[in-house]
C-alpha cells in the first residue's frame, strides 16, 4: 500500500544548489513515459491543469525543457479542508542525443498530458559505422 502511495504522489522538482526561483510557487517533476516507436521517440508527461497555452517546450543545445505554468482553479469562496495533493508548476529537463531531428519536434496537450514526438534524424537512421580491427 505504501508503495502505491509513493508512486502516485507528486514529486517536487529539485533545484540546483545556489539557484532560487523567482515565482513563489511549488514546482513538481511531472511523471513521464518515454517510448521508442519506430522512427520516433515519444515522451508523455502528466501535467494536470496545463493546456496548450500554458506549457513551454524549449530546446537549448542538448537540453529539452518542458515547463507547465499553472493557474490554480480554486473554487470561489471555498476553504480547503482536505489536501492530499499540492498544486504547482511542472518542470523537467531531458538531455537529447544528437540523433533527434530538432526541426520536427511536435508537442500536443490533451487532458493534462503533454505529448512530445521527437523524430529521429534521417541520416542517423541508417548511418552505421564500420568497426575495423588492427591485425
Amino acid at each position: 500500500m505504501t508503495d502505491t502511495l509513493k508512486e502516485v504522489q507528486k514529486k517536487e522538482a529539485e533545484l540546483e544548489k545556489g539557484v532560487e526561483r523567482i515565482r513563489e510557487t511549488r514546482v513538481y517533476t511531472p511523471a513521464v513515459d518515454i517510448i521508442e516507436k519506430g522512427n520516433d521517440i515519444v515522451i508523455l508527461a502528466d501535467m494536470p491543469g496545463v493546456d496548450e497555452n500554458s506549457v513551454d517546450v524549449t530546446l537549448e543545445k542538448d537540453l529539452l525543457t518542458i515547463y507547465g505554468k499553472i493557474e490554480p482553479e480554486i473554487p470561489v469562496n471555498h476553504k480547503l479542508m482536505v489536501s492530499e495533493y499540492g498544486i504547482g508548476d511542472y518542470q523537467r529537463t531531458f538531455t537529447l542525443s544528437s540523433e533527434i531531428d530538432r526541426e520536427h519536434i511536435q508537442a500536443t496537450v490533451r487532458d493534462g498530458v503533454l505529448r512530445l514526438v521527437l523524430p529521429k534524424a534521417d541520416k542517423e537512421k541508417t548511418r552505421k559505422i564500420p568497426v575495423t580491427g588492427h591485425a
Partner: protein
Amino acid sequence: MTTTYLERLLEPWREFDRMNRLINRTGSQGCSEYPSVNVWVNGDNAVITTEIPGIDRESIDISVSGNTVSLSGSRPAEETKEEESYHRHELWHGKFSKTIKLPFNIDSEKVNATYRKGVLHISLPQLEADKPKKINIK
C-alpha cells in the same frame, strides 16, 4: 470563546478526514490511494478536486449516495507494438476507485462535475432537507 466555537465548527471535518483515511486504507488492493483528492468547503457546499490526467471523460464514473461519493475510472496504457520499447515508465495506468464520505448528505440532483485539463471538479451541495432549520417561536 472564539477558539472553541471554531473548533466545534471544524470537528466534523476532522472526523471526516480520519474516516476517509480509514476507508481508503482498507479499500480494494492496488490503486485505492489513487487519485489524490482535495476537498473544498463553503458552508453547505463541498467541492472535490482531483488530478486524473489522460483519462477519457466517458470512463469517469461518479456516483452519489447519502453522504458518500464514489469515483471510478480507468486509464489505459499507451498502445505499443512489439518492437516498441519503454525507456521510462512512470505514468500511472489502470483502474481506480475511491470513496469519499462527506459530513452531510448530498443533494444528488444538484451535483455538478467538470473535467478540464486533466482535473476533475465535483461540486456537491448539501441536501436541503438536511440543513439546519430555524424554528420560529410563536
